[in-house]
């Protein structure tokens, strides 16, 4: 982050460090406009508007948000969109797309379109559930390790590293096969419990870099307790990384849970995209002329994953202007009158 080209008009800076009233938006929650702990001191409506502007200005953010909002809507109100009960095996089997069945029917006689619509809910629940849970665990462990240092740091690091080294998917397979058909809640717990280590590392690294910032020393010198410093002073300044951690964890949750379901370790009675893939594979969908049974759920998984990934990139760019694509906007030279 060492670009020495901070634009001018930045106020009384000494070594020309961060801009003061400068044109670059600041990294961090004040600019991302997220509501924070620490309450009333932070502007609400104004930062919401700024966030909206930041999202519309950034292409990745716009696409990602649109996709995510679409999927959330589908997951929240499946009954409004899906014409039929997804589990009902009452329709003619293995039919291609038609007016009544937009995607056709499965070899069990279920309406594929309804399945896809209803299948969104468990996936999104898992995504947000794991996202939140894993991020919270990662945050507690990572930040505590960084701030406490010493033996506590050492111990927490060992635990984190062990989990990091173990290949996650085989571990999930082993756990999943013990659990005999993991429903949504179990899936969330298992993936969160094994997947927090990666983001814990990242959060610890950032907390470490913040540890010697003077505002933390200033808090210490005015007499704040360590727990207060961690919760009120450190964590809010890490909000952008926490959001990134959330998106990362959500993305991997989507992919891992769908994969587990695909190989049959999920609960087959739950309708989700992963289980659709499982049934489709078992019934040789491609060979029997029902390619949509595999393609559509697969595509949905991909799109949801892409939404999280795009939002991740977008937040990076919003937070760190140096990462933005270099567009050289040619303004009219004649504009500047002299």
């Amino acid at each position, binding site marked *: 982050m060492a670009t020495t080209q901070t*634009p*001018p008009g930045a106020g009384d800076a000494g070594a020309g460090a961060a801009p003061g009233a400068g*044109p670059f938006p600041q990294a961090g929650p004040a600019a991302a406009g997220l509501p924070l702990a620490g309450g009333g001191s932070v502007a609400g409506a104004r930062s919401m508007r700024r966030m909206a502007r930041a999202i519309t200005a950034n292409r990745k953010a716009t696409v990602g948000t649109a996709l995510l909002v679409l999927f959330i809507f589908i997951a929240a109100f499946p009954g409004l969109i899906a014409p039929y009960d997804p589990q009902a095996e009452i329709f003619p089997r293995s039919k291609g797309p038609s007016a009544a069945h937009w995607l056709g029917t499965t070899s069990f006689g279920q309406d594929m379109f309804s399945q896809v619509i209803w299948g969104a809910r468990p996936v999104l629940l898992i995504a947000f559930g794991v996202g939140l849970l894993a991020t919270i665990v990662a945050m507690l462990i990572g930040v505590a390790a960084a701030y406490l240092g010493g033996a506590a740091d050492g111990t927490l690091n060992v635990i984190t590293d062990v989990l990091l080294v173990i290949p996650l998917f085989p571990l999930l397979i082993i756990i999943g096969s013990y659990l005999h058909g993991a429903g949504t809640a179990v899936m969330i717990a298992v993936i969160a419990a094994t997947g927090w280590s990666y983001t814990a590392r990242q959060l610890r690294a950032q907390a470490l870099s913040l540890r010697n910032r003077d505002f933390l020393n200033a808090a210490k010198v005015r007499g704040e307790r360590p727990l207060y410093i961690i919760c009120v002073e450190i964590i809010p300044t890490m909000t952008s990384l926490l959001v990134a951690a959330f998106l990362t964890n959500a993305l991997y949750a989507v992919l891992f849970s769908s994969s587990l379901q695909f190989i049959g370790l999920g609960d087959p009675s739950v309708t989700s995209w992963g289980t659709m893939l499982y049934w489709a594979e078992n019934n040789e969908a491609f060979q029997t002329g029902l390619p949509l049974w595999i393609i559509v759920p697969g595509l949905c998984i991909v799109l949801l994953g892409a939404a999280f990934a795009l939002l991740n990139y977008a937040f990076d760019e919003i937070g760190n202007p140096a990462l933005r694509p*270099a*567009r*050289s906007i040619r303004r009219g030279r004649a504009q*500047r009158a002299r």
Partner: protein
Amino acid sequence: MPGDSSPLGSAAPASGTVLEVRDLSVEYLLERGTVLAVDQVSFDLSAGEFLGIVGESGCGKSTLLFAIAQLLVPPAEVTGGSVIFKGRNMVGLTDRELSAVRWRDLSVVMQSAMNALNPVKSIGAQYFDAMRAHGVASKGEIAERSSEVLKMVGIDPVHLKSYPHQLSGGMRQRAMIAMALLFTPDLVIMDEPTSALDVVAQRSLMVQIKELQEQLGFAIIFVTHDMSLVSHFSDRLMVMYGGLVAEFGATRQVFDNPLHPYSIGLLEAFPSIRGPRVPLTGIPGSPPNLANIPPGCRFAPRCPKVMARCEVEPPELYQMDGTLVRCFLHDGGGRADD
């Protein structure tokens, strides 16, 4: 004499003008608007001349420097004027064409050696890279020249094997300066090379730079925020404010008889260690916001001698006893030619 026996670069300094900057303007093209960082700056630099550019943060001096060295990256862009170095206009050259000039005829010394030097390579390896990149093939020549430049700056050549972190701050800066002199360039641009050093090391480095300049005959553009630093070393001094040249003349003259109220204020803001202890006031207020340039003189809001005219009409550069000054107080001498 090092200049004569060196197998690289010109032996004798060329006479005449080495650099002509004409109406150079640099803008930062941001989403929020354009920030005019450098506004039509013009000057000539003769061979072997030491030009000091001083100003506070936000005045555009570093941006100007980067523009001359063609090191600007988007969103910064040269939006007007020319930089004619040894007869060629550097603005608009491709990277390929520039690399023929870089380091051989023009080199740059950055503010902090720790940022500019590669921390995982030894000094000797970095000199090797630099020379290889500019066409010197023979290892023997490279080794010989590397030792030579280190000796020139007063470092024992055994340090070619050292890594940057093993050298002290002053030695690192000297190593950087030595690297800039590998090809005996005609112009060396320095961006606050001493600001990370303590006062004694700073003094010693300045003297060293001046000695090298007199020995090898290169021109120097030296950017700093500390006016007193260049007072004994530079031939001419340019004071910048708000992206414009405020005052420009022979160093001694600017110090002994400053014309622009900003120069006067700046000089008076340095408490002296000799002479009577007097209360000082500094210059209240902040530099202008260059995204939103006010009409009239940019220093008017802070000027103790402001007149009604200053707030409406922007002053041009006027001539006054050989010094150029951008202030209506001195418009009697007539406008400068460019």
